[in-house]
């Protein structure tokens, strides 16, 4: 690309966190995270075919399989959001926007779970 060479310094000038040298180091990290996400996927599938209720304590009342699957999914989500979306080194402005999202998302989930525990709905057992 002959036309692009002259722009090299221009692109890199944008912000020093993302200089070409820094980016080169990051590429290796992106590939490693990609590999970790693939492993995480196989791990989730493997875990789904094991009955953790028989292995872990309190299996009658706690659905361990759901907990294990969600822990793996959260770990994978952290890798994507943290590194691919650069959230571990973002500007303050983005964090303040996302703080609202985290709060309302957590509220939504807590209300959902809370409503389940305090529901008076009688389920018809077929």
């Amino acid at each position, binding site marked *: 690309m002959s036309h692009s060479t002259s722009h090299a310094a221009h*692109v890199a000038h944008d912000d020093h966190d993302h200089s*070409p040298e820094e980016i080169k180091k990051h590429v290796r990290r992106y590939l490693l995270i990609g590999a970790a996400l693939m492993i995480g996927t196989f791990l989730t*599938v493997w875990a789904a*075919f094991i009955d953790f209720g028989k292995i872990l304590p309190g299996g009658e009342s706690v659905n361990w399989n759901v907990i294990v699957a969600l822990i793996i999914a959260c770990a994978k989500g952290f890798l994507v959001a943290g590194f*691919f979306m650069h959230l571990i080194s973002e500007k303050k402005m983005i964090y303040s926007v*996302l703080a609202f999202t985290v709060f309302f998302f957590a509220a939504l989930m807590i209300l959902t779970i809370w409503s389940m525990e305090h529901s008076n709905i009688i389920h018809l057992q077929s």
Partner: protein
Amino acid sequence: MEIPYAVKPRPDTGLYNAKVGIWLFLASEVMLFGALFSSYILLRVGAPAGTWPHHWLNVLLGMFNTIVLIASSVTVVLAWASLKMNQFNKYRMYQAITILCALIFMTIKSIEYGDKFKHYEFQLKDGTVVDGHIDREKSTVKVPAWIPFKLHGEGKIVIEHANVVKKHKTAAENHAELMEGPAPLSKEAKEAEERPEYEFESSQVQAFSNYGPWHNTYTAIYFTLTGLHALHVVGGALVIFMIWGPLASVWRKDPVQYTNRVEVSGLFWHLVDLVWIFLFPVLYLL
């Protein structure tokens, strides 16, 4: 008029405006999918015992699609990194793979969807539940593939590799047993593939439908969640394609703005991947 801070960071936020914009949008997207996940939880917990299917979708296809989306997320971030290193050709190659991954994902998703529309459950008047694909050549009555599910005329219906449950007295109990079915990839599931065909008269049919969104609350939330996600895949791939192809000349005019566009479209793509990371275990595995 030039739009301010489209390229240069705004002094107070330290960011170019599009980045603030995409994050505000992604924040609203998280709430949109969050509301649907909340609906999923309530539907699942509220489902009468034995009516919520487990391991009912094809796990191998779901896992393959997860791998495809993760691979595309890696190529998106590598494409952006290539632009930062001024390697336009590499960027072109990586985004071409991303678009290809999006196409593979959508192809597999449509195969999965198509199978659900071909898959029927018949509840017969004596309580028997028959489940499987209709042999349209051997059947003498036309069975609709869309609502309303009503049979017109008399005739026989032939189901290929039928899964027939008649152990219990009521259709509801037989249906519950059917939903519990063997886990895919298990020995029982493989044996089930060799089941014989099953034939019955249309006059015996009490109720029936295919496994479209109308079948039960599980298929309703399954089609809603994955359908909305699939729309995001299509939308994201279109934007990435537009920047990659028709708008590629922007790179020559303003490489920083071009790189920013790639970054913003990439952030959206990662969110699409992130949502699928949760959808896969929730719908396919739990």
